[in-house]
């Protein structure tokens, strides 16, 4: 059994001056190196959960907290200010909220300086993320002068540069076109495989998320209503569709085949898997037809 890195216990949070809790009685355990996909409609509490894991809640927000949130075995409220943020990096869905510097390069360097890294190390990491997220042409530009998609990439790079043990990405690709979106997920795949970071991604675009996620979490109205290993998670298709989660076409197709009795319970998570499975299925069907 791998190390538990995050443990959320009977946790509820209600923002001040609101009539309903944003999160209710959440229980969630995340192991080191896990890649978790968090999905759910807008307003279901996904961002509140992200803020709760890096101590922004209750640190920066007023409200009522019940239950506990442990990160590395310690309750988030027990951390000295700023300590938790060294190990938990958040890429916000609104990247402007996180910019403070006058150039993209300064923006990337800022976080590393704050962590007290040496200049050679900062230089090395700057080169690495610039390359990884393809930011070279933007380094000297002011963050407010670049496009929404470019801002999202800078925000991602700024967090990557610090390589926190836990990375939380809140809709990191909402403003990106399909190519840049794919590139971001390629970067995440690399981090997962080579660095064993624990990664939590909040996303509406499931096609890229599903092949990477070890586990999926569905939030609805502030409650965690489904959590499972990704292939098993999608066995609950009626619930997902009811909650307006629309899986990629190939996955939905195989779910329908499964319900109709044509296919087994192993749902394909990627296009490659779906192609192979469909070819096998048709081959077997044809063989059976010939035998009869």
């Amino acid at each position: 059994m791998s190390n538990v890195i995050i443990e959320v216990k009977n946790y509820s949070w209600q923002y001040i001056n609101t009539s309903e809790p944003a999160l209710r009685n959440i229980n969630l355990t995340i192991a080191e190196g896990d890649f978790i996909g968090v999905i759910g409609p807008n307003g279901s509490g996904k961002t509140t959960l992200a803020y709760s894991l890096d101590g922004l809640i209750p640190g920066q927000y007023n409200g009522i907290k019940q239950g506990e949130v442990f990160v590395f075995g310690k309750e988030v409220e027990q951390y000295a200010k700023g300590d938790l943020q060294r190990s938990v990096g958040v890429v916000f869905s609104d990247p402007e909220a996180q910019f403070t510097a006058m150039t993209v390069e300064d923006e990337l360097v800022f976080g590393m300086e704050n962590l007290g890294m040496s200049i050679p190390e900062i230089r090395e990491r700057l080169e690495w993320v610039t390359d990884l997220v393809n930011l070279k042409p933007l380094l000297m530009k002011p963050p407010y002068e670049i496009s929404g998609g470019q801002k999202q990439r800078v925000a991602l790079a700024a967090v990557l540069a610090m390589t926190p043990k836990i990375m939380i990405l809140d809709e990191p690709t909402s403003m990106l076109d399909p190519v840049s979106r794919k590139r971001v997920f390629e970067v995440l795949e690399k981090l997962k495989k080579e660095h064993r970071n624990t990664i939590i991604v909040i996303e509406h675009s499931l096609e890229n998320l599903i092949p990477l996620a070890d586990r999926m979490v569905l939030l609805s109205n502030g409650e965690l209503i489904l959590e499972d290993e990704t292939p098993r998670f999608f066995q609950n298709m009626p619930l997902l569709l009811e909650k307006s989660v629309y899986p990629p076409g190939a996955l939905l197709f195989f779910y329908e085949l499964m319900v109709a009795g044509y296919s087994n319970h192993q749902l394909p998570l990627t296009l490659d898997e779906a192609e192979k499975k469909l070819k096998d299925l048709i081959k077997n069907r044809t063989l059976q037809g010939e035998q009869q």
Partner: protein
Amino acid sequence: MSEQKPYIEVKNLWYSYTDGTLALSDINMEIYNGEFIAFIGQNGSGKTTLSKCLNGLFKPTRGDVIVDGLNSKNTPIVQMVRRVGYVFQNPDHQLFNNNCWDEIAYGPRNIELPEDQVKERVEEAAKVVGLDEAYFGEHPFFLSKGLRQRVAIASILALRPKVIIVDEPTTGQDARQSLEIMDFLKRLNEELGHTIIIITHDMPIVAKYARRVIVMGSGRILADGETRDVFRMADVLAQTYLEPPQITQLAQRCASLGFSPSTLTVEEMLEQFEKIGS
């Protein structure tokens, strides 16, 4: 369709920004009443620039844009925006009044309609987008993104344009909100006869709603045709780094088994599966 006169004609359109950057090269197309079109392509491919040429916000550097018989070169913008409305990608770039009523009334007032007609138009537009009267006095910024987008669309509808261009209607919306906004545009198209153009990166949305697709790349039209036919053009799409919806790709990879490479939906795929090998 060929006997009908096009509502919009674009002839040899070139557009350069004032700094000299070439944004559109030799665009030719015709748009007919009642069409539902998707402009697709990477960021920077010219989709938004082309849209702004269609509503007269940008004047051609060379060539012509003719809308309802009027050449955009010598037609005042107030005449153009009554025919082609453009809804911004981010509603916040468009909304600037202190309450929803003034926001929706801005266009009709700008074309100098008398106040009683302005009132009629605002009420009509609000009704179409399903914006309750209770919101009329609200500041748009305190509404949800979905509602702000409705206000943005209502403010365009109040000008009663024949053609409505919506830039990235589903960005930042969850699945339910996306379908709601798209079903609403479909209703404008089918019931009220508006021509709808969406600019989007969401291929499943394109497959479900658009009947015609125009693919843009580096300021040019790379393909223009029926949705099914365009999604078959893997090479063209790859040129601009787009991919057809996942179910279409699956059908294309399994075409040798008898699946049609222009399959658009899961239902179509299931129907074919029933037939193949049974």
